């Protein structure tokens, strides 16, 4: 990436200000007080410790998926398959949880993490292999793999894994306690929050302090130069894709195990797609990804409060989100280019 310009520091606050301003106008147009609206939005996300917990919980799956997606993007591998990898991760973890329900937690949970990573990773490695061997465009193949992955999940919960006691509803039976990722004592936060920190630090070290990290960056910047320097491009592509699959898979595991305690189709709410947007907003830096996923989670949680307290329609939250993304990206774009009046011809 190019060295940051000084203007980039101001992009986000300015963009946020503009989009909040427009949102206030929209609120006013509905006859609601904009000031009250902003206050309700804020208190919904940060008003009390438990709302911060809610926001953090919502951050976890977005963050993990986005972290993975960003690594592949760094290599200019356009993997948009985090949604499917998330589904397969949840499937892999559920398979372990249902098959080895008798194991103690100390064994079962690591096994579930391994299975989630393996399933999610394998789901990402297939399009990577197709790209390398047959030259199939990974944008198309990873997108299609999303739908296949979600359908596999649905097939399992509607079919072989359906809980006999669920009255025919599509869900597996409740996980045994040993298969549930626990909570920090006294909070609703599960250990996945800690996992996020570990993954972020681990990835930062990998990207900035190791040889594969350097090779990865070099291959992303210039494929031909990397080839010339005999960097193992094919291995690296497989590595980053599998890494992304594993991270998204863990996000799926955490949602299934720690939050709902079973596998069900409604786990799929599009975190894998949100992750792509977050990765772009954050310009692929792990630290900024953490910031932006937390911010987006706060916006979503806060917008619920807006519905509850002011009776604003749910679509309003989506509009705010769209406005913010639009203004930030536009800001980044115009910061990169300069508008020169009358300077169309050099």
């Amino acid at each position: 990436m190019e060295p940051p310009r000084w203007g980039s520091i101001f992009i986000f606050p300015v963009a946020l200000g503009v989009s909040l301003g427009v949102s206030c106008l929209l609120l006013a147009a509905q006859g609601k007080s904009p000031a009250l609206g902003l206050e309700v939005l804020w208190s919904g996300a940060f008003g009390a410790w438990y709302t911060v917990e809610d926001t953090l919980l919502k951050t976890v799956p977005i963050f993990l998926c986005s972290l993975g997606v960003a690594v592949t993007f760094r290599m200019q591998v356009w993997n948009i398959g985090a949604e499917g990898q998330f589904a397969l991760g949840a499937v892999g973890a559920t398979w372990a949880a249902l098959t080895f329900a008798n194991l103690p937690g100390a064994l079962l949970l690591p096994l579930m993490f391994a299975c989630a990573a393996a399933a999610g990773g394998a789901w990402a490695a297939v399009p990577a292999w197709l790209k390398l061997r047959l030259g199939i465009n990974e944008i198309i193949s990873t997108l299609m793999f999303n739908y296949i992955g979600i359908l596999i999940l649905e097939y399992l919960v509607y079919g072989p894994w359906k809980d006999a006691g669920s009255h025919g509803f599509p869900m597996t039976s409740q996980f045994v306690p040993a298969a549930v990722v626990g909570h920090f004592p006294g909070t609703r936060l599960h250990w996945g929050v800690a996992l996020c920190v570990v993954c972020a630090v681990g990835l930062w070290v990998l990207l900035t302090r190791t040889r594969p990290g350097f090779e990865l960056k070099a291959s992303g910047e210039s494929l031909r130069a990397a080839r010339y320097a005999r960097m193992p491009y094919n291995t690296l592509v497989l590595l980053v894709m599998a890494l992304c699959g594993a991270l998204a898979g863990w996000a799926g595991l955490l949602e299934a195990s720690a939050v709902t305690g079973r596998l069900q189709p409604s786990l799929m709410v599009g975190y894998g797609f949100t992750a792509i947007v977050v990765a772009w907003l954050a310009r692929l830096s792990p630290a900024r990804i953490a910031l932006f996923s937390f911010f987006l989670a706060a916006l979503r949680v806060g917008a619920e409060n807006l519905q509850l307290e002011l009776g604003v329609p749910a679509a309003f939250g989506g509009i705010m989100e769209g406005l913010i993304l639009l203004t930030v990206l536009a800001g980044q774009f115009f910061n990169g280019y300069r508008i020169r009046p009358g300077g169309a011809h050099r």
Partner: protein
Amino acid sequence: MRGFRLIALLLCLAALPLLAACGEDKAENKPAPQAAPAQAEPAAEPQAAPAQGAQGEDAKIGFIYVSPTGDAGWSYSHDVARKVIEEMPGVTTSFVESVPEGPDAERVILNMARKGFKAIFATSYGYMDSMEKVAKEFPEIAFMHCSGYKTGPNMTAYFGRMYEARYLSGMVAGAMSKTGKLGYAAAFPIPEVIRGINAFALGAQAVNPAAEVRVVWTKTWYDPAKEKEAAKSLLDVGCDVIAQHQDSPGPQEAAQERGVYSIGYHTDMTAFAPKAHLTAPIWNWTPFYKDAVEKILAGTWQHQALWPGLAEGTVDLAPFGEMVPQDVRDMVLAKKQEIVDGKYKVFTGPVFDQAGKQMVPDEQVAEDKDLLGMTWFVKGVVGTTE
């Protein structure tokens, strides 16, 4: 890195129509006139809700919907009742719409509980586990869960016997069909939907014993294009009446375009296909919700499993289209009266499954627990429950 900026620009452009679409959507979905709390501070206390609403303060009643209330379907039908409750003295209502059934539901329910709501209505089966969890933490709040089966000391499970109205609509369809082939655009293979298809088929067979019902699953609750396509595929195999379980009027439009008949759902869908719409099994939650809220306010509410139907007015049949002849109307309304009076029950034996196995013995009525967990199709239904 030119690629970055290029993609950023593309993303901006891609987001534009999305934004415009959001704007339109909002214009349609006129924000429900909400008694916008003039109160400045939402009292957000982490402790359990006060047992009794403080003197002079309105009891807050919360609703959680799975889809936007502007969908003219399932959530809309509940919101109609909410608006009536809103007018009741001493009551303020709020709702959160478009809440996915997974992890998000628990947070929304929990937040209502923390804000001291007196009662919370969750209107989709996927909210069941979340509601059960929160209900245990807040014993003073009345929790009402629609379309599930779990109850607790302060949690009621309720639903409507939509299958009774489905049966009547099946009679209309059976009487109006020339080919005896009825199409059914179905949502998801869960008991509620399967039960509806079966009742529809039994109703049609009561009029035309040779009637068959062809089922196509869309795996959607609201996707106008997909649901319309599903209806077209049914029309292509010779069905001449289309019924549906989803929220969108897509199947109705498909039927009208091909000049055949249709049966709506949720609400009277005549406006979408006036030439095709024969009738529709519809929801009317108002009497049930009013009664529940009155009991909650009076302190006489008790948890239970409730399953009101035609007799209670929770489900009904929409007005007949003008193409439905008088003799058919008379026949269907007579049957409706029998059901209301308790003289006839849908799923009275003998009822056979697709393979011809007798599932309900002669002269007996299927038990509620079997209906609630129904996973098989009756004879005459063409399709699978997977």
